[in-house]
């Protein structure tokens, strides 16, 4: 536990200012009562109450995150602090006032009327100032949470970009380009064109926008063409898009992570390579998009790595289509993997 003494001191000063204000108001209404003792009472009661509540709340384990104890603990602390502050503060103030002779000759008198007023004032003032601190505290807490959430979202976006622009893929592609420039300039140009559209699509892809299924397949073709140059005869691919579905609107680059998974975890680890098939079909009122490969199957998926692509697609489907979207992943050892995504057709 770390206590921020500067902020505690700031709280104490605020409490004192509040206590003195109340004393001044009370004095304005009852000018017949002596001012000095009231200041002593008010400062002592407020200081003790502040000390118990402000320093005490850090001892509650439930206050670790929000700064205030949760549930009954919070109420107990406030009530205890106010009562203890009143009793102890009044007692010490009595002694001080007698000692310094603030009262006219004769013992300090607490007549029942006075007693009732001061209890009421203490309780009300205590509750008001506690509420004030509680709400500023809560505001700061919510603000902090919001900053955290924003940071989280930014990190996720960065991670997405990093997986899409994976350095290994980028540098290997560039190395292939460099090799082609010397031996086959025409093919190098074609490869560069695919790379340009791949990069443009990746960098533009903002979540939540859509494009046509034909455009989606074109982007997949760019990526697969790049990979086909790199992997040579180890990669064959088929893109099967029925003409009547070409104009369907789909979320941008939805299938990209699935095709990347198939390459990275299915075909790249397999010595003899294999093929990828991406297809689209209509099933009742639903559009079914399917990415299947003849790779190594589940053993190619590292325990941690594979999840990100799938999780990302699942998350997007859920935000866009709620329960109407579905994703299904089947991998058979040695016989490849197949991922199907389905969501409602737009008519």
């Amino acid at each position, binding site marked *: 536990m770390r206590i921020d003494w500067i902020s505690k001191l700031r709280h104490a000063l605020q409490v004192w200012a509040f206590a003195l204000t109340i004393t001044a108001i009370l004095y304005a209404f009852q000018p017949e009562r002596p001012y000095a003792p009231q200041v002593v009472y008010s400062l002592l009661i407020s200081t003790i109450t502040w000390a118990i509540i402000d320093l005490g709340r850090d001892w509650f384990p439930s206050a670790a995150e929000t700064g205030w104890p949760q549930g009954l603990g919070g109420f107990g602390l406030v009530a205890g602090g106010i009562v203890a502050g009143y009793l102890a503060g009044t007692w010490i103030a009595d002694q001080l006032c007698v000692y310094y002779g603030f009262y006219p000759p004769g013992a300090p008198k607490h007549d029942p009327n006075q007693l009732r007023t001061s209890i009421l004032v203490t309780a009300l003032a205590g509750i008001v100032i506690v509420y004030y601190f509680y709400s500023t505290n809560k505001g700061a807490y919510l603000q902090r949470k919001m900053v955290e959430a924003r940071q989280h979202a930014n990190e996720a976006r960065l991670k997405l970009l990093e997986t899409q622009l994976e*350095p*290994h893929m*980028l*540098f*290997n592609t*560039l*190395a*292939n*380009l*460099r*090799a*082609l420039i*010397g*031996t086959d300039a025409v093919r190098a140009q074609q490869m560069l064109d695919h790379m340009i559209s791949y990069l443009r699509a990746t960098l533009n892809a903002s979540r939540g926008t859509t494009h046509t299924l034909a455009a989606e397949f074109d982007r997949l073709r760019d990526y697969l063409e790049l990979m086909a*140059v*790199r*992997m*040579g*005869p*180890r990669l064959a691919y088929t893109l099967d898009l029925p003409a009547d579905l070409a104009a369907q609107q789909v979320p941008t680059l939805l299938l990209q992570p699935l095709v990347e998974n198939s390459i990275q975890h299915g075909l*790249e*680890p*397999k*010595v003899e*390579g294999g093929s990828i098939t991406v297809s689209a079909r209509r099933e009742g009122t639903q559009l079914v998009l399917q990415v299947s490969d003849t790779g190594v199957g589940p*053993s190619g998926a*590292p*325990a*941690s790595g594979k999840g990100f692509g799938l999780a990302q697609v699942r998350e997007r489907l859920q935000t866009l289509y709620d329960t109407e979207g579905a994703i299904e992943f089947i991998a058979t*050892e040695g016989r490849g993997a197949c991922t199907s995504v389905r969501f409602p057709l737009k008519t």
Partner: protein
Amino acid sequence: MHKRAISLENMSETTGLIAEDEPLLAQALQAELGRAWPGLRIVASVGDGASAVAQALALRPDVLFFDIRMPGQSGLEAAAALADEWPQDAPFPALVFVTAYDQYAVQAFETQAVDYLLKPVQAARLQKTVAKVQEALARRAQDGNHFEATLDQLRHLLGAAGAAPSGAGAALPLKVIQASVGSSIRMVPVGEVLYFEAADKYVRVLTAGHEYLIRTPLKELLPQLDAQSFWQVHRGTVVRADGIESVLRDEAGKLSLVLRGRTERLPVSRLYAHLFKAM
């Protein structure tokens, strides 16, 4: 100029092997090497780790250019396998790793025994590597430490590559191994395990009297074991140190282990032979 011509003359017998899964990159590297090192003859160009090991053993080239990311077996794993199976009497080849991205912390390569190249390979950088390899090959003729240094570095590289993914998640050491036996799960205390052995898609867990199969790969299991008590002695074998009864050395200098309560002998890879030295 004259001096340089002589040194190339001396190198004219040098042979090399390229292991690279992307055909264009393999061709490009071979072409660049042809320009940078005319005396080098590439005797084989293969596309995966296992073929690289087989071809290197069959052809015994002087220099190996291994891509790190290859299907089947990575370049690092292939080099480790090769170090294990390399005959004692022949000098170990000079190793150059080729990688597109420095995920294996390129600084780990910055020593003498093993060099690295970043893809795309650039002529000037390749020239430096060639000079370094030529120097290493010349030194190898006189000095036997080359192989030891290579082993040392490979061990380091494999350790670095294995430790990376677990990172902060290095949890407490595993206490029990959960192995399924028929329809039940058998809880095997780690303290009873004598050794783990990788077998195809499974890992065999052997105690004094029993054998179990688990699906967790050895690579994932290893970071969860207490490194003080469990030692890796081979690519596919992790042994509990206090279960080892004796270490035997055969005529060829290869080490094998005898465990308390078991009759079989476990071979020790050269990569891990340094663990067994008399105190």
